[in-house]
């Protein structure tokens, strides 16, 4: 029938109108991210054995670790810094980590005002996120 397409079109828009919205109200509601989103790094300092594998795996030399020898001649993590400005969130460091201390998180609100804030102190951040009750 001539003009049948017009009614098909009207039907589709009506269905869209009555159907649910796909908009995410982001600042009020957190978006439902895909499970393998990589948007931040998180460290569990207790698990870290300061082996430096992550720093070696990193293609951009983002990670710098300092450690000192403990009582039983074991390395103890002293500081764990990431220069996130150079990080491309490839996740190679987390794959290299033998204990699973380092992991990618979905925390994506990383906007900052000063360039210096890009240098993350991972131990401090781990403490903070534990204080907020999030998964470290």
């Amino acid at each position: 029938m001539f003009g049948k397409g017009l009614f098909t079109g009207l039907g589709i828009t009506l269905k869209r109108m009555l159907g649910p919205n796909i908009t995410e109200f982001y600042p009020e509601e957190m978006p439902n991210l895909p499970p393998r989103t990589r948007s931040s790094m998180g460290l569990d300092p207790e698990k870290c054995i300061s082996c430096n594998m992550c720093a070696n795996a990193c293609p951009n030399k983002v990670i710098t670790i300092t450690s000192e020898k403990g009582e039983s001649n074991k390395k103890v993590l002293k500081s764990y810094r990431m220069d996130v400005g150079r990080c491309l969130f490839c996740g190679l460091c987390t794959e290299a980590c033998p204990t699973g201390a380092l992991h990618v998180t979905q925390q994506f609100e990383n906007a900052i005002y000063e360039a210096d804030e890009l240098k993350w102190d991972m131990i401090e951040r781990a403490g903070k996120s534990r204080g907020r009750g999030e998964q470290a």
Partner: protein
Amino acid sequence: MNALNQLPLNIAAAIRSLFGDPHSIWADLTMDIISIILVIVLIVLAALILILLERKVAGWTSQRPGPNRLGPHGWFQTIADALKLMGKEDVTPAGADRLMFKIAPMIMFALPMMTLAVIPYGHGMAPIRLNLGIVYYLAISAVSTLALLMAGWSSNNKYSLLGGMRAVAQMISYEIPLVFSLLGVVMITQTFNLSQIVADQHTIPFIVLQPLAFVVYLIAGVAEVNRAPFDLVEADQEVVAGPFTEYTGLRWGLFFLGEYGNMTAVAALTTTMFLGGWQGPAILPGYVWFFLKVGIIIFFQMWVRWTFPRIRIDHLMGLAWKVLLPLSILNIFLTGVGIYIYQLIVPRIGG
């Protein structure tokens, strides 16, 4: 319910009774001024609500919520936009025809005001009763062509001029099927008086007797107010915004107000001519029925706008002259035959 139905008439009578002679010239003048103010309020309110509704419908058709930041569900968005428009600088382009440039938006706003003044909103609630209501309505609504051409010509801008020329070509072409589609109703009722036409629909709305005319009128009506899919006049991708390109601030706002006023006027005339105007089951007052029907027509116009892409200009002309005009003439012929048969049969069966 009857009291609610008669409420506007009773208020009018109360105001008239404040004068010594309720039918003196001063009483008439006061009532006229009040009704014109009411019509202006109607247009402004309609624009405020319809602009938001349009953006909501636009959102819903593309699975978005539409404006939702300002006020409950974004209902104050249009008010904020109107305030913003008022605060903007009023720019007249260099080389513009200043007088025409300034008059055009005023004409555009005055026209829906004049057309909506003859619409019967309820039983005995036409602000101005005219025996030639339809003729007056069509004559006035045709002037909006002139306003758009004035705006396009005076802007000193090639896109505006193109838009103005398109407005003339489109609106004059669609005026003809528009008028011819209304002729069927006039043939049945034998009157141009809008109140009488509504009163004649107390048994059956004319959409049942004139379905073809209704469809033709609806299409031509959308084309008359230059809305998508017939928005070639202001087609953003082709002629920027046509006649509105050079307008800023409140002058542009007046055009916008006029556009939504025209849309309301076309919907109001559709309701009056085909949907039985204020007639309806007595569960609601007549004027509520009227505005409900107007709302349905306006929603349909919005639905169409956000569904169809813009029509090509040669197809636009082809549709008017090759499809709608023959259809409306066919409708006049069929109506004439129907009336003749009716007149032949009814006296014999004693109708």
